[in-house]
């Protein structure tokens, strides 16, 4: 009963929030006029109806979930049948006998589901943007894509290794200014004696940012928790102030513009990214996918486990033989280098000045990571999409001064109802702790990802005719 009331309250609050967000705005003389206007007569009916629909959905959620589970169960049962028969043919990796196949099959289909889900998301991400208006494309690049990349980098530092870095945006700045230094003779007062194609700057910026990460991390990673946060905060401020005040080097507050866009000039292939946002968007997608794949591999490797161990108990990790200092430096360097990537894209795409690299930007990236789900790659990308997308959608309806109120409201709601983030990493999700599982299944599960994929394909091949017929 109380659960139902709580669902009603949630639905009502969300509907009211939506009403206010889409309604007219007040002004300084009539601060409440906006709210009154938002909840005026014809509108309020619509939102009340919306609240009821949402309430019904919330109430039906558990039943829907249960139904989905039974459906999935029967489907899997059908899948496992032929697969179990097939294992006897010596088609699998010989490790698991018939008994091992059943739990293996459920797990494999789970993984296959994840792969399919990722592929579907990627397809949507590739297909949808061309039909969007240019302003939305622009936002997808400079608000969402860039911040998704930044959040992926910060996710390594905060989500994996558990180091609170409040000056993360400084590495972004370093990447951007490195690009300016290397690619243009007149964007900044200080420039390299020769100019490079921005593509060659990608690895250089990655290295420079990684080195900056090590330089910052070397002396400061001995600090823990809050102390590290303060020091990194200071580092971020230093970089921004340097960029702002070293007029003779960076151009100061005027900022940097006129960098050459990304371009490929090979014999036969000639392409320039130009000013259109769409090519940059696809470049960002490529970078994000690359980073996600690399980090996914890392996450499941020794390195990822060492980071998790450090995050959960640094003393125990050190006593177990994990070189904690080196691993933390690695996390810092890796996070910084991804940020450097983002810096290159931003620098070639658009104007930037020191204001772009303020504390607020650092906090925004951190918010995205927490909102999306610390330690989850897809989570932080979706977090960037949702948070920055919300900001973009509010652009026309909400005056700039009010925008952060809604931004804050979204984050607060998230923390109340789903503190682990939009899409928490696998380890944090409640897992079925089945009493006794076969060990050979275990070893196949967590190690042999390629072999497992092979087996899953085998299962699919054998299963599909069974399901169809």
């Amino acid at each position, binding site marked *: 009963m109380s659960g139902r009331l709580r669902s009603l309250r949630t639905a009502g609050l969300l509907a009211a929030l939506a009403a206010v967000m889409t309604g007219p705005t007040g002004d300084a003389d009539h601060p409440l006029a906006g709210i009154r206007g938002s909840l005026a007569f014809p509108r309020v009916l619509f939102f009340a109806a919306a609240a009821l629909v949402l309430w019904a959905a919330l109430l039906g959620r558990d039943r829907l979930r249960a139904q989905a589970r039974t459906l999935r169960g029967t489907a899997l049962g059908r899948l496992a049948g032929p697969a179990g028969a097939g294992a006897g043919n010596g088609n699998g990796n010989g490790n698991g006998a018939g008994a091992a196949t059943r739990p293996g099959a459920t797990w494999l289909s789970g993984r296959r589901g994840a792969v399919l889900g990722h592929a579907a998301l990627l397809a949507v991400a590739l297909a949808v943007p061309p039909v969007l208006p240019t302003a939305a494309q622009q936002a997808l690049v400079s608000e969402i894509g860039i911040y998704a990349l930044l959040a992926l980098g910060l996710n390594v530092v905060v989500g994996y290794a558990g180091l609170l870095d409040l000056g993360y945006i400084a590495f972004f700045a370093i990447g951007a200014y490195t690009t300016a230094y290397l690619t243009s003779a007149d964007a900044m007062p200080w420039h390299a004696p020769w100019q490079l194609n921005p593509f060659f700057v990608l690895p250089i910026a990655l290295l420079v940012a990684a080195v900056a990460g090590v330089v910052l991390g070397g002396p400061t990673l001995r600090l823990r928790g809050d102390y590290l946060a303060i020091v990194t905060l200071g580092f971020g401020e230093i970089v921004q102030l340097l960029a702002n005040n070293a007029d003779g080097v960076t151009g100061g507050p005027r900022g940097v513009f006129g960098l050459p866009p990304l371009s490929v000039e090979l014999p036969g292939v000639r392409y320039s990214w130009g000013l259109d946002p769409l090519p940059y968007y696809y470049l960002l997608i490529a970078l994000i996918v690359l980073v996600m794949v690399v980090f996914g*591999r890392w996450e499941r*490797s020794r390195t990822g*486990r060492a980071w*998790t*161990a450090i995050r959960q108990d640094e003393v125990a990790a050190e006593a*177990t033989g994990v070189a904690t200092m080196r691993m933390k430096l690695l996390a810092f360097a890796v996070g910084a280098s991804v940020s450097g990537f983002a810096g290159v894209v931003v620098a070639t795409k658009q104007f930037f000045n020191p204001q772009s690299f303020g504390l607020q930007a650092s906090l925004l990236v951190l918010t995205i990571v927490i909102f999306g789900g610390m330690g989850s790659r897809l989570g932080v990308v979706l977090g960037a999409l949702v948070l920055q997308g919300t900001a973009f959608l509010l652009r026309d309806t909400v005056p700039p001064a009010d925008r952060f109120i809604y931004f804050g409201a979204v984050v607060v709601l998230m923390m109340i109802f789903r503190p682990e983030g939009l899409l928490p990493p696998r380890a944090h999700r409640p897992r079925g702790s089945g009493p006794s599982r076969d060990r050979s299944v275990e*070893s196949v599960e967590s190690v042999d990802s390629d072999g497992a994929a092979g087996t899953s394909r085998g299962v699919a091949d054998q299963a599909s005719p069974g399901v169809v017929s």
Partner: protein
Amino acid sequence: MSGATVPRPLPAPISRTIPQPRPSVADPILDVRDVTLRFGGLTSLDGVSLRQGRGSVLAVIGPNGAGKTSLFNCLTGAYRPQQGSARFWPTAPATSANPAGASALEGVGEGGVELVGRSPHRVARVGIARTFQNIRLFPEMSAVENVQVGVEVRARAGALRGLVPTRAVRREEREILERSHLLLDFVGLRHRVRWPAGSLAYGEQRRLEIARALGTSPSLLLLDEPAAGATASERRDLVALIRAIVDQGVSVLLIEHDIRLVAAVARSIVVLNFGRVIATGSPEQIRSDPAVVEAYLGDSDGRADDRAGDRTAGQAGDRADGREGRR
């Protein structure tokens, strides 16, 4: 579930079996000399010396605050004593076919390895593993992942090589996982492989911590009050487990309050009080040593023994409550 824990043989390290040594004090594994540790004006350890024979169990006992855990912390690099030395002779390179292990063991000669001044992870790499008085696991990682972190200390693939799943890297990962499973089996946690460590029962967490420590292929295992808070049957299991560990050629240095447990596994005991060694000898000698009786056991042997047991159990209970409270 605390019941029949029949220890199986300790699985061999990833690459090679440890040669089985014979216990003898003439062939030491650890030689601590004159270790003095001060915190400001407080002297925690005052010229502590002890010597442990290879393949033996040595117990360190003493009243609360005697400096037992401080001694452990000095040996494992968590504290740096102002004076003294602690030399350690690893049992062959922990995994001899392993460059990472071998490089950590370079320069191990007649004089052994100096532990004082080594950082904790380098102490672990040279072949000393430890457990903690207040269990320190990685609570959100699964049991097997906890052990994997230990086993991976001896792994070859570094951060960058591990990124590319070549055949060698994959084979090593499989070996690591297999060994981790065997270790869980060894401590009787086979049925908890996928459980988050934080959700295990108290006694299981203690055993998991031992499995993780064994994962680093140590030649010396430091156990800090492994029986604190354990039931009688868990204590019996623990005795069997420690014996099985020693049978595999791993020496054990043990801090424990429970005299009966100590007498069951250790042939020699060192008694600390106020940071000093006040007695060394066999359990029988220690029991009858007047200085020990006065400092640690109280007025009469039997009663005090029980009292000590109660006391540790009570403390463990408090600690367990504290852990609950913090979550």
